């Protein structure tokens, strides 16, 4: 018998990575220039987690997916018009900053409190998903702290695959060094899975899925609680972007070997 799952995905928005990002320092610390002007997208790491969650829930009847998002309400709303077309989920929205400069400790506390407030959540069926490095400037700390606050000891980071068996036990593939995976077996939920990229392609936009999701998305946004992140005790020594050098040349159908040779040669020049 398939045990139904309850999957909570923590995922928020980031500035569209295709836009030009420029760090600036303001009275409240570092931020991105014109951040509210830029379009936003669902954090790609969290996006993979959401798509994997929906895929998993779709195979086990009675399962449910929540998306818990902390971000500026107006921006969340805009992003949800795209995300909600992809897969079925119920939104839990928190109105607060989603800047990459928010304190991951405070962010984790707000997310954990929101998850604890989901009335119908059964922790015995809970899988907590999120992006491996989301909301933590690559440290992988936010989701880990959310799990700790919820008292979930089984944690996996850099996950590429989960296989859930009929009895509720599951196998997880975690990325480890050397391009290999560590295979772990868990007897049952709850567990925290910080996803790497997973294996699923991005689902197509489906208007019917969008319509179904909107029944909960708009009310969730309207009742989104304020979640101010004070950044108390957080100090940034310096902020910079990686040095970029653009030298565009578009070549199609180039053999992989030739690409590799060019990249190696380019690295050698640096």
């Amino acid at each position, binding site marked *: 018998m398939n045990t139904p799952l309850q999957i909570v995905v923590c995922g928020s928005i980031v500035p*569209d990575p*295709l*836009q*030009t990002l420029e760090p600036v320092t303001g009275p409240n610390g570092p931020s991105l220039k*014109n951040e*509210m*002007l*830029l*379009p936003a997208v669902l954090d790609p790491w969290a996006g993979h987690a959401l798509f994997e969650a929906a895929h998993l829930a779709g195979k086990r009847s009675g399962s449910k997916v929540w998306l818990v998002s902390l971000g500026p309400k*107006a921006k969340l*709303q*805009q992003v949800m*018009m*795209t995300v909600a*077309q992809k897969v079925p989920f119920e939104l839990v929205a928190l109105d607060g900053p989603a800047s990459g400069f928010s304190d991951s400790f405070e962010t984790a506390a707000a997310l954990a409190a929101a998850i604890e407030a989901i009335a119908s959540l059964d922790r015995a069926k809970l899988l907590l998903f999120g992006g491996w490095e989301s909301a933590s400037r690559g440290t992988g700390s936010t989701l880990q702290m959310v799990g700790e606050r919820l008292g979930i000891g089984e944690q996996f980071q850099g996950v590429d695959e989960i296989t859930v068996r009929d009895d509720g036990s599951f196998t997880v593939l975690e990325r480890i060094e050397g391009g290999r995976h560590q295979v772990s077996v868990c007897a049952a939920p709850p567990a925290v899975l910080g996803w790497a990229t997973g294996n699923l*392609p991005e689902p*197509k*936009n*489906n*208007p*019917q899925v*969008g*319509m179904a999701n*909107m029944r909960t998305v*708009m009310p969730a*946004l*309207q009742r989104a609680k304020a979640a101010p992140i004070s950044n108390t005790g957080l100090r940034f020594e310096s902020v910079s972007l990686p040095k970029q050098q*653009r030298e*565009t040349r*578009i070549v199609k159908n180039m053999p992989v070997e030739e690409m590799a040779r060019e990249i190696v040669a380019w690295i050698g020049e640096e």
Partner: protein
Amino acid sequence: MSEPAIERQRMDVDVVCVGFGPATAGFLTALSRHLVNPDGSPAVESRVAPGLPLQVMCYERSDDISFGVSGVVTRARGIRATLPDFDPSQIPMAAAVSQEKVVYLLDPIGASRRSLALRLGDRAVRALRLDRHHGVELPYVPPFLHKQGGMVMSLGQFLQHVGAELMGSGTVQIWPGMPVAEALIDENQAGVRGVHGVRLCDQGVDRNGQPEANFLPGMDIHAALTVVADGPVGAVGRQLDQEIGLPQGHHQREWALGMKMVIDLPENTELEPGTVFHTFGYPEPEIFGFFYVHPDRVATVGIFVPSWFRSPVRTSYRYLQHYLLHPYLWRYLQGGKLRSWGAKSLQESGRRAEPFLAGNGYARIGEGSGSTNVLTGSGVDEAWTTGTQLAEGVLELLRERKPLTRENLETAYVARRRASWVEEEGRIAEKARDGFHKGVVTGLLGMALAGFTKGKHWLGGEPQLMPDLKEYYQRKIPAEGVERIVEDCHNRGVSCHGALMERCGWPAIPYDGQLLITHQDALLVGGKVQAPAGMADHVRFIYPDFCERCATKMCIEMCSGQAITPGPDGIPLFDREKCVHCGACVWNCMTPLDDDPQRGNISFRAGAGGLHSPEN
């Protein structure tokens, strides 16, 4: 044997909108305020979901609701009428117009094609030392052209603002990334032919539209009213034009390609927010230009390349770069940096391109409905206003429980439009630009004549045949030289205009990696062009053998994204990943179809993606 029918999902709504531009933004803004009572009960009840308010959907092709193209200066009369508390300071990149100039640009390098009259005029200007930085500032802005009291803004940012307000209201839904393939045209049970909704694009198909592994057939959205607002090259509007035709005497033969850059001005800029320059005379006399200054040292700078510019290798990006480099403008731009880039086609026939504005189950608003004013050079405010007029009409009909038939929409919507300033000013502008078919000087005089006489008088002109390459360049390049350049470019798979222009004296562009960058860099850095996987090619060459015989191949030269390139056997290649959906290929195809000479050999269908920048 017939192909198996595709089983499609179906959804029923009350109103479906095609495209989210200024017209739909106006329509939804005016409509959404009246759908729900203060106590939350429906003010206008849905017929497909009784007990609920009107169910209103909008489907937009691009990845987000703010990826339109137009750095715009507008009087914003219609926008302010709908939004009386509108505060430009609440929208990034918006500012009140502070000063406005019309500038005639002389040719500082001697490469442009100027008529004898212009050359004589230029000599007189220089002799009398009337120019400054090779530009002559006109002593005043004609009243029909000025935008005093208006604002400069980014249409992308404006739509993002309006879209957020609309979605926050919870009364309408706007779905980006979802192109509409076609209108559902059929007879209803009563035998009345009309539009009954739309079909969304198939996904999970190959470039020819054939289903692949993840095939998701486009859903059929049935609605009592389909609002067609997909712009001048939109698939649904063009489908209706083709199937229903245009009113007697109307045509859609005047076009322009607008291409612009959003630029970070140098730190020491002296330009104030709200500064507006309208220019003409350079890089070619037929090409008009614009320069709008936004807050925070940002400017929108661009050109319009019109269909009456009779060059068989007319192009836009290369000309835009020469425009930036004109000394009158370069003194402000030197040291600047590209933020964003984009291009779009403009329907320049104005009111004379107006299709049937309403039919059974559908209405047309915005630029594709002929609302653009070609005399005042204004389109956004007009488009917005037509949307609000339709909303008022639809609300009236729904409250009176009248069906959305052609007759009722004519009374409730079209009559409103006819009685408005959009119609009045559109009629004044109707023939204002006809003189350009006889030359630039005649065209400018014709505009002035129409403007100052409120459209009572104008200078006429009819489109003339496009010269071939050798004829066009006969005074500058020998015929065999043209042949060699064309052959060489085709062998290299590139367009010809760059080589031909340089042969005529246009200097090479001094790339600086900041503002002066290659065309492909502009796509990537400025346009951030997107093409989601699993969609069919939206540009098709209907009869490839026609392309083989086509000598000019202007689709290649004028392509804003270098998405159309020379291919083997003379049939151009199309690369969807570079297309910005500007639609220039549609009106630059010089190969008319035998059965419909008004149409060229390029089919421009619905497709997803395109420009991916909110600053345009």
